[in-house]
């Protein structure tokens, strides 16, 4: 069963907590429900993007520094 992680906000998607840091997760990593997989920045405010279910993060649909719109699929877990 695959699940989509959707951005509720417009903004910029970041896979790392800061410059020079390791990504929160990489494709193929196991994630648990509630785990942070990235950040969306809207007008200098940062919101965490979280996995909704336990599983494996199969693929990021939005790259680091990518522009997201509300409803965009950020990543797919299975």
């Amino acid at each position: 069963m695959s699940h989509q992680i959707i951005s509720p906000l417009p903004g910029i998607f970041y896979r790392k907590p800061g410059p020079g840091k390791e990504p929160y997760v990489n494709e193929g990593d196991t994630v648990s429900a509630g785990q942070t997989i990235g950040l969306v920045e809207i007008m200098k405010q940062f919101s965490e993007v979280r996995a909704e279910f336990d599983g494996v993060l199969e693929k990021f649909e939005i790259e680091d520094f990518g522009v997201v719109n509300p409803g965009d699929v950020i990543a797919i877990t299975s």
Partner: protein
Amino acid sequence: MKKLLIANRGEIAVRIIRTAREMGIVTVAVVSEADKTSLAADLADEAIVVGPAPAGLSYLNHDAVLKAALDSGADAVHPGYGFLSENAEFARKVIAAGLTWVGPSPESIELMGDKSRARRAAIDAGVPTLPGTETALRDDDDLEAIAARIGYPLVVKASAGGGGRGIRLVEDPAQLRGTVEIAQAEALGAFNSADVYFEKFVTRARHVEVQILGDGETFVHLGDRDCSMQRRQQKILEEAPAPGLPDEVRERMRDSSVELARKANYVGVGTVEFLYDPFSHEVAFIEMNTRIQVEHTITEAITGMDLVREQLRIAAGEKLDITQSDVTFSGHALEFRINAEDPDNNFMPSPGLIKTMNLPGGAGVRADFGFISGKTVAPFYDSLLGKIIVWAPTRELAIARSARALDEAHIDGVKSTIGLLSSLVGLPDFADVKHHTKYIESFLDSTIPDSTGDAE
């Protein structure tokens, strides 16, 4: 100076373009892909796309901005505020490329950017400071003894922080070591330096500041401002002059700020920020900002000067044509920051299309905006749409005129701070100068019914 590149966006880019055009200087706006149809791009003589929407890839991209300057034949770069304005490395690159940097020297930027060095410089210049450590804490320091000498509550501040960021409160000794460790880790992550220092914490303070101007030889102050109305440690309503300060406090602030500029051989505009304790009447240095500030307009309103014009003249190598005795103050000015955000929903950003925007007019009212009707507010940048600046002969009249002006202002399409500002300016506490930097939070807590039961 014949052609000026503006390395910024929004209302400050528009502000700089306006003065440059009045001086006969050709303007070049740099824009991201998201800002190609911005008002700044419309008003500038040329607009150059320097990268995609994220600021890190466009407005903050040193090489792209510098290339735009060189390709366009600009001979000067104005950084505005935020973005690259206090980046000494970028300033050095601009100067090394043979261009004029509209701002203080890279050395001044570095000195004031390092908060513990700036504090040392302030002490040397006779600027009043809060009790605290004069250098960054070391691993072998006896933290408990140092903290006990300063007294609780105190704050742990990142040396490389500023603008309200990189600050943590310690209320009692049990929290001390843990908070220092967290602050050091956060400072390393956010500012690439783990240096932190201690400063006494003032529970209920006002934020006051002094505008200074220097050409490396002559140094003057242009009076003071109060910026105590803040949300999330960000200013939202400012006024000049700061109301209700005892004369000796105001004089000490102003004179010591000029002395700090003089000792640093400061070139350009700068702002020395202070905390003012209205109960003890003590004033203490916070930091010095080495750039034009958002709220420079209220200083312009009470002095009749154009601070961007002064910046451009000084950068071009001209000397100040005034001394302190030529600076005179008239009346009272208020500035209201109109942000695209929802005060009823924890100041949630509100990007989108501005369907209509009606700005106020009439005597003593100035509107500096980066947007007009039909423009879109992108979700990628700061939420500041623009500022309404109101001048009147007295503070009382300025408050009445502000209420009238804010009543005329209307924006359809995005949520804004107009309604909140309208409420704030009408409060007896504001008229009586009883507000402080935590006032808005307590005001909102008491006026908005808490439907969630969440204490946050």
